[in-house]
């Protein structure tokens, strides 16, 4: 039997921001309904539902919950938790189900009222649990603090300063300025980043993504569609920062697996979406995967390499840093944007030159879980 090729038949992302009044399930359902409509499918035609976790809901079986809400009765349904990598992990799982012939139409969803469904302190405390319960969290470890330690090591090893990371935040904000639904759209400068209040030095407020409400969804099918998933990969090398090998975090391993399946390499990528919870996250991922030479991600950003008309259009919706971060849906927004660009349907945001090869990468925990996908015009 021929192996099926997985296609992305439908995508949707909601506006992100502080938008009280809807639950995590509401955001998931809103995104799912829109993605199904985009795919030209109705819920009863879906035979697998994979739903990312929501910290505000903590439901035992989010995919069953969502399936019932939508009117779907899938043969396969489960929730998934891999931190910020979840959106790409569940896309990879959907592609595998389709390739294996175990499903023909998979609905992949993330959504959460992360900004308004809990207090900021509760959110910080919940997310800090990616640290070690006995040997990291009691020290005062938080997600920004863990990434600040990564930033400290990264900057010291390359002889850089915080000003070398700031252009990444500036470029994401410039992208968001023309993206409807972006959480943060007011333009910023490098000086604004450096003058913003310290969160966990060397990271300042504008080095960090906002916390948002919103959702995103993707429909993966065996039936042909405009965009194919030609490669997926994952790598899981550690959970805790203390055990991380900064020279081999897993991003390259994950990307190599995806590129290998697709028969592609970084040089083939026309448009990319790379996880950017903090400026340093984006710099480290771009450099480990090989999109940038060591220590040059910030200078590449300052030179316009990641602009829509640059050599590597990156996070053209504004990324987590400016479109926003609602949890699993935040990482999926990069996927939705790359598919939209490959379809040539990004309107005023459209990358010139009809991009044909896209790459998306997600990171969960403290560079702990990695998942990648190569997407191509079919």
């Amino acid at each position, binding site marked *: 039997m021929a192996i099926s090729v997985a296609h992305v038949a439908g995508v949707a992302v909601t506006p992100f921001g502080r938008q009280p009044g809807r639950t995590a399930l509401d955001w998931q359902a809103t995104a799912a309904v829109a993605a199904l409509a985009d795919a030209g499918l109705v819920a009863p035609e879906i035979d697998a539902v994979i739903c990312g976790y929501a910290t505000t809901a903590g439901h035992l079986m989010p995919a069953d919950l969502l399936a019932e809400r939508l009117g779907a009765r899938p043969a396969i349904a489960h929730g998934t938790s891999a931190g910020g990598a979840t959106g790409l992990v569940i896309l990879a799982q959907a592609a595998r189900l389709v390739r294996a012939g175990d499903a023909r139409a998979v609905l992949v969803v993330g959504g959460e009222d992360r900004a308004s469904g809990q207090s*900021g*302190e509760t959110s*910080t405390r919940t997310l800090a649990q990616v640290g*070690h319960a*006995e*040997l*990291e969290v*009691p*020290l*005062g*470890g*938080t997600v*920004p*603090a863990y990434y*600040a*330690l*990564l*930033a*400290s*090591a990264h900057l*010291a090893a390359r002889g850089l300063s915080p000003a070398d990371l700031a252009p990444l935040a500036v470029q994401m904000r410039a992208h968001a300025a023309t993206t409807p639904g972006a959480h943060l759209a007011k333009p910023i400068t490098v000086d604004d980043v450096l003058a913003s*209040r*310290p*969160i*966990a*030095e*060397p*990271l300042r407020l504008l080095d960090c993504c906002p916390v948002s409400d919103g959702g995103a969804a993707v429909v993966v099918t065996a039936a042909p569609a405009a965009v194919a998933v030609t490669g997926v990969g994952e790598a899981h090398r550690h959970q*805790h*920062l*203390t*055990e991380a090998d900064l020279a081999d975090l897993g991003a390259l391993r994950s990307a190599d697996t995806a590129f290998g399946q697709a028969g592609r390499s970084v040089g083939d990528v026309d448009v990319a979406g790379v996880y950017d919870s903090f400026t340093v996250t984006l710099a480290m991922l771009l450099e480990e995967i090989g999109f940038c030479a060591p220590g040059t991600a910030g200078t590449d950003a300052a030179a316009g390499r990641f602009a829509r008309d640059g050599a590597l259009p990156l996070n053209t919706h504004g990324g987590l840093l400016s479109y926003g971060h609602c949890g699993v849906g935040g990482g999926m927004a990069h996927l939705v944007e790359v598919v939209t660009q490959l379809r040539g349907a990004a309107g005023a945001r459209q990358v010139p030159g009809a991009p044909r090869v896209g790459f998306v990468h997600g990171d969960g925990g403290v560079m702990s879980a990695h998942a990648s996908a190569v997407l191509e015009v079919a």
Partner: protein
Amino acid sequence: MTLAYDECPSCGRRWTLPRTGCPSCGAEPRRCASAGLGTVAAVSVVHPSSGDPYVLVLVDLDDGVRAMGRGAPGLAVGHRVRARPDAGIPTFRAD
């Protein structure tokens, strides 16, 4: 909380956080106490939404493993430090 690390009795690999098996060879590790001497690998002054700022560090211990701790103000990457338990929390100060 004392500074300690795991060592594999079979292949000699060392790491910090407790595991049930060696990631190289799978053997059951033994827990060893660290002397607490090392070099700062990363440092952050954390500004919590309420309360005073504090210093977090990653330290490359002379035992060949990396540990997280609190740090004294003013530490920088490359500084030699020694850990002292401070109300049970390992706190690194210039040695």
